């Protein structure tokens, strides 16, 4: 491709990251098949924010859409990273959980319904603390129930990434899709630096952050199933493909022996070079590892 062609393609690319939650959710559906549930005009907002001087958003930062992906019934739940860092409150968490439970009920009636969860979130919304934490536990329970019937696909594109309690939801997913810009981990660099010092994690070291939490590293170490470019058609294709693929034979979070063995073999006397770590945790665990 000529330089000119490449530039034009870059300029004309539809960035997925630049879309808000509503636009991202819509982009994943087969054209004309999606409708939003409990949208802003239903005005189901957080009962806890205004009293603390925080302006609520009418959808509480969570968009629920139902429709078809690759011709199959699907529900997409998208967190709005720009609202309170995508953090989980009572209402946004309830929307997510209820959506997955309804999808599960449809599966039980014979209508195969997958779920796609768009995670741009720092975890629990501290203004709702224990209700946020509780609903994440409930979401995890809903994922476990649904994923027996149909795939639960977690997609993190950036710029917020997926951290905190919601990273466990990603851990339970049937499939994880990430862009290079995205990050996935339980604790962000600032939190680690606060708790255990700058030697443990220098939160100003951007290269280190992406080397550990970034999409490319997660994909290379078998923690993500697809690495996509920041281009809406690519992202939608990846999701379509995974919806069609169906439930995996074994979920990653159920491969306990594999991960127990891998963790047992780690030399904890030093920090690890993330690039070298990739050699330790190749994408497909060998039979040796699975014993």
């Amino acid at each position, binding site marked *: 491709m000529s330089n000119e062609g490449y530039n034009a393609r870059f300029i004309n690319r539809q960035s997925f990251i630049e879309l808000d939650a509503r636009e991202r959710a819509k982009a994943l559906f087969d054209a004309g098949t999606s409708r939003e549930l409990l949208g802003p005009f239903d005005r189901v907002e957080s009962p806890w924010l205004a009293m603390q001087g*925080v*302006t609520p958003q*009418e959808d509480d930062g969570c968009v629920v859409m139902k429709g078809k992906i690759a011709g199959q019934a699907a529900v997409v739940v998208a967190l709005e990273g720009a609202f309170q860092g995508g953090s989980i409150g009572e209402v946004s968490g309830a929307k997510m959980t209820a959506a997955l439970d309804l999808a599960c009920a449809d599966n039980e009636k014979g209508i195969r319904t997958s779920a796609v969860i768009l995670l741009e979130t720092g975890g629990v919304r501290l203004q709702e603390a224990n209700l946020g934490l509780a609903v994440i536990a409930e979401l995890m329970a809903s994922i476990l129930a649904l994923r027996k019937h149909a795939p639960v696909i977690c997609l993190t594109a950036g710029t917020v990434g997926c951290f905190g309690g919601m990273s466990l939801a990603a851990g339970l997913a049937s499939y994880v899709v990430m862009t290079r810009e995205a990050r996935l981990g339980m604790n962000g660099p600032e939190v680690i630096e606060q708790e255990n010092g700058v030697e443990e994690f220098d939160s100003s070291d951007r290269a280190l952050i992406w080397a550990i939490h970034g999409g490319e590293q997660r994909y290379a170490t078998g923690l993500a199933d697809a690495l996509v470019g920041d281009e809406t058609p690519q992202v939608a294709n990846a999701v379509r493909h995974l919806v069609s693929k169906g439930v995996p034979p074994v979920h990653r979070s159920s491969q306990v022996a594999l991960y127990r063995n891998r963790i047992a073999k780690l030399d904890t006397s030093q920090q690890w070079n993330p690039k070298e770590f990739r050699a330790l945790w190749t994408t497909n665990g060998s039979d040796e590892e699975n014993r």
Partner: protein
Amino acid sequence: MEQIEFNYPAKRKVPKGAHVGVVGSGDLEVLLEPAEGEVAHVSIRTSVDGFLDTWKAVLDRFFTKYDGAVRIQINDAGATPGNVQLRLEQAVEVSER
């Protein structure tokens, strides 16, 4: 947190509602709905107190050009007057499509 209300005269029925924006830092969301009668009612919730005059100035200006009978709700997290103007115009554009 402040709750501010404004009313403006309106002449025209509006085809449909619109929602634009996000309640992010420095941003706002606008919910616009067709209303009965000849009034446009604006309801603002903002986390930045003390800017009543600025809100009035922005809305006065907006309504010199807009005559739809609507209910507008704004949830604001510290947007500049320029951003408020932009979001209102976006909402109108979507509602007139």
